[in-house]
């Protein structure tokens, strides 16, 4: 059973790596170059799937946080923390690739356009989540505070979107995609999503092992002390 699990796990990672490599090769060797933006548009095939996966990871944190508030099981907190970590990683990539693209497209690393600000605030929200956690000593308190944070932070996301809409926008409008481009986008999306899910799962496994090694056995009964039957008193 255990070895089977391990085999599936290895196969999953090998498949992800292979598909990822194929997708990158496809982007550079096969997909036609976009007419107006040139080669730099190729960043898009990575940028967008990663952005979508950032949202998915944030959503996992949100759901796990609700789960913790509802059931008070440590598992939920471990899941929330793991996916928040991956969300920050993904969001950093979104910001970095976005900045590289922006520098090439309009010569600036950073502008305070709504979409950039939005991503930055999202990144800050979840970085703060990770920073807050270790500063709370009690495991239960930490889980509680961070699950409340996880819920509010995710609800913040649409609000950030709304509030940055108030800012003057200079972001280019949507790009028309040729069929080949759509296919490339899809073939990038699949391995990136698999990678993100795999990272969350791997991080979660580590976290679980750590938690379980700290915890007392799940059976609370006293096995050392003999319990005398209750002396009836009425």
């Amino acid at each position: 059973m255990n070895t089977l699990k391990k085999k599936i796990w290895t196969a999953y990672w090998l498949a992800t790596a292979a598909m990822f490599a194929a997708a990158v090769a496809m982007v550079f060797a096969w997909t036609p170059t976009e007419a107006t933006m040139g080669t730099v548009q190729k960043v898009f095939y990575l940028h967008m799937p990663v952005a979508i996966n950032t949202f998915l990871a944030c959503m996992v944190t949100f759901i796990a946080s609700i789960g913790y508030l509802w059931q008070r099981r440590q598992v939920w907190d471990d899941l929330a923390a793991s996916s928040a970590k991956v969300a920050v990683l993904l969001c950093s990539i979104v910001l970095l690739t976005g900045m590289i693209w922006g520098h090439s497209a309009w010569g600036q690393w950073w502008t305070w356009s709504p979409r950039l600000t939005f991503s930055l605030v999202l990144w800050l929200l979840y970085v703060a989540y990770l920073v807050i956690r270790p500063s709370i000593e009690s495991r239960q308190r930490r889980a509680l505070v961070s699950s409340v944070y996880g819920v509010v932070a995710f609800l913040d996301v649409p609000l950030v979107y709304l509030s940055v809409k108030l800012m003057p926008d200079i972001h280019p409008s949507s790009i028309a995609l040729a069929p080949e481009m759509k296919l490339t986008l899809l073939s990038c999306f699949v391995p990136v999503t698999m990678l993100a899910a795999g990272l969350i799962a791997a991080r979660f496994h580590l976290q679980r092992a750590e938690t379980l090694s700290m915890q007392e056995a799940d059976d609370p009964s006293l096995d050392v002390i003999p319990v005398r039957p209750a002396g009836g008193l009425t």
Partner: protein
Amino acid sequence: MSATTHAVAAYAVTILLLWGYAATLWLSARRQKTNDNQDNAGKYPQGNPGSNRGGSDPS
């Protein structure tokens, strides 16, 4: 810097971060496993029936 350099740089950064993180996770999982084995060997000498976390696999 040309557009191509930018694109390549973006891909390099992404691959480095994503797969680098995967590698660190893999390494710490391995380290944890060896630690657990050592721990268990030290804490529970052979034939201890009271040990309720005998295996090294957390799941």
